């Protein structure tokens, strides 16, 4: 059954930022691309996301950030996963200026998706991140 290979993605809004238009669109894009999407919703913490990733046996974690908090929050997410001994790749999307992309990758974020990424690019980025992590 193909379900055995179905990629499981946990999507979450980390912190106070309430902009959820993008993450809801991404959730539908990934679902249409055949993935299983677990959307945790708003106001999640690194702890709540780690717990969900463990419980749901997630293959990837997607964070959407629109409030300039990415340089603080995304590395904190990577650290929290490492502390829990999970190697789940973290994918960051949203409003991330170009000059922040490399520092985020250096801090262990798997992929950064900017505004304007097509549906195909988003789905492929998740597949690649999952493949590279295994």
């Amino acid at each position, binding site marked *: 059954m193909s379900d055995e290979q179905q990629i499981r993605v946990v999507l979450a809004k980390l912190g*106070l930022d309430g902009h959820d238009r993008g993450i809801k669109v991404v959730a539908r894009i990934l679902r249409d691309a055949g993935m299983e999407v677990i959307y945790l919703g708003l*106001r999640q913490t690194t702890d709540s996301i780690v717990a969900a990733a463990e419980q749901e046996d997630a293959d990837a974690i997607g964070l959407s950030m629109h409030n300039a*908090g990415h340089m603080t929050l995304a590395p904190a997410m990577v650290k929290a996963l490492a502390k829990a001994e999970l190697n789940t790749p973290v994918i960051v999307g949203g409003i991330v200026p170009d000059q922040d992309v490399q520092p985020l990758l250096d801090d262990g974020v798997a992929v950064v998706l900017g505004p304007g990424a097509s549906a195909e690019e988003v789905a492929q980025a998740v597949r690649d991140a999952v493949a590279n992590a295994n």
Partner: protein
Amino acid sequence: MSDTDAEEAWRASPEYAAWREKYDAAKVRDTPFETMSGVPVEPVYGPGPYPGQYPYTRGVYPTMYRSRLWTMRMFAGFGTAEDTNARFKDILRNGGTGLSTAFDMPTLMGRDSDSSWALGEVGRAGVAIDTLADMEDLFADIDLSGVSTSMTINGPAAIILAMYVAVAEKNGIGTDQLAGTIQNDIFKEYQAQKEYIYPPRPSVRVVTDMIQYTSAEMPRFHPVSISGYHIREAGSTAAQELAFTLANGFAYVEAATAAGVDVDEFAGRLSFFFNSHSDFFEEIGKFRAARRIWARWMKERYGATNERSMLCRFHTQTAGVSLTAQQPEINIARVAIQALAGALGGTQSLHTDSFDEALALPTEKAARIALRTQQIVAHETGVANVADPLGGSDYVEWMTDEMERQAEAIFAHLDDIGDGSILEGVYAGIENGYFVGEIADSAYRFEREVNNGNRIVVGVNEFTDGDEGQGDILRIEAEVEEYQRKRLADVKLARNDDDVARTLTAVTAAAADSTVNVMPSILDAVKAYATLEEIAMAMESVFGTYVEKAII
């Protein structure tokens, strides 16, 4: 009928005569109302009802921009209260009379700067306010009786309003002299912006308390700015923005009248805030329909008799969501077109977005270009000479009717699920996921159209050559966070802990008794230098918190 006959007919109508009388009695700007080639133009053309006449489709005032141009209100706020205070004084020195305040994310969510939730967010998207001491800094050496202050905050709006009142009292200014607007539109938080603290019903009770409080104590203050802007940014269509916003307005009217406030005592102080997006005629139809619907519902359904209660006066902001990160300079053209739609739609004030805002808060240069853009619309295009210049166009009138028809269908649905109450319908629509579901569906449909190429977004899926990457963007330094935490620690050391504990207990008691207005107890707590989060939590212990169901 020839064109000349038609013109003679409307000029001879009693409506025109009534309008003309008001126009002639009004004071107009000292400027020639003629084209750049010297052709004199009339203040309005075509058949009535005319601007300032019910149902106000053509404008809320008889003279519209001939008396006063729209207010060019640019929204700003950053860093510490002292930083923003310096910016405010700069605005006032340059002849401005309106201050507009943006708060940072922790403040908007009722969190202090030392909360673990605030990490990385302090002072980034606006000014950080933890206690009355910050509010004193924010308005230091500013005569609050001589300015109008707009404060964009919702969940903890009652606490911020109380701080504003406390600052005025300390400076010997009576609450009756305070003018301004607090956004305080909690419904759209559950529907779109998601900056709520408590569940809907207790939140609306606080809004109602604020309407009552301002009606009695602050007659020049607008207690709610009913905002469609965020609904549209979250992905709604133009008609959904129109309908959800006006339905929220009806819901506040029902809530306040149910609490015993006469409709004409507060409805004239309600104002609106709409988005201006890129589909030019749809936006103009939306603005015109908004005025007509509000007037009709206020008069016919809610029994308003004061004309002011029927006027849909609104602020407009260009569509942030339409700005592209690719080839950012072309956003200047988008903003110009959207600003023009706002002016042709008869807005009372306008904020134009900066071209670099798809990436970060605007740089100074980008913000200046945005202001210059609306100054060009106001002073070079001639559109301010004639009220509702598109009125009478078959297409524009049809679009206005179509926006109204779609909105009425949504009102009928809300009335139905609310068993004859729009207020209950809005609660039901929040609880059953109607609003967020409709908005998410519209957002996804738009994305699909862009993705499959059926909808062209210049620079994104077509005409992509020439993107030179990102230029300078504004960075907020992390020192603000450290400064603000220290400031808060100092205030906590200096205050009287017994007073804080006593006043917070009183806030909780007031929250628990729905027959009591919460504002006086919040005012006492604020004066004791209780923090924003402490006061918010004192109410949360009674009201509980709201957690949205995560629906895709």
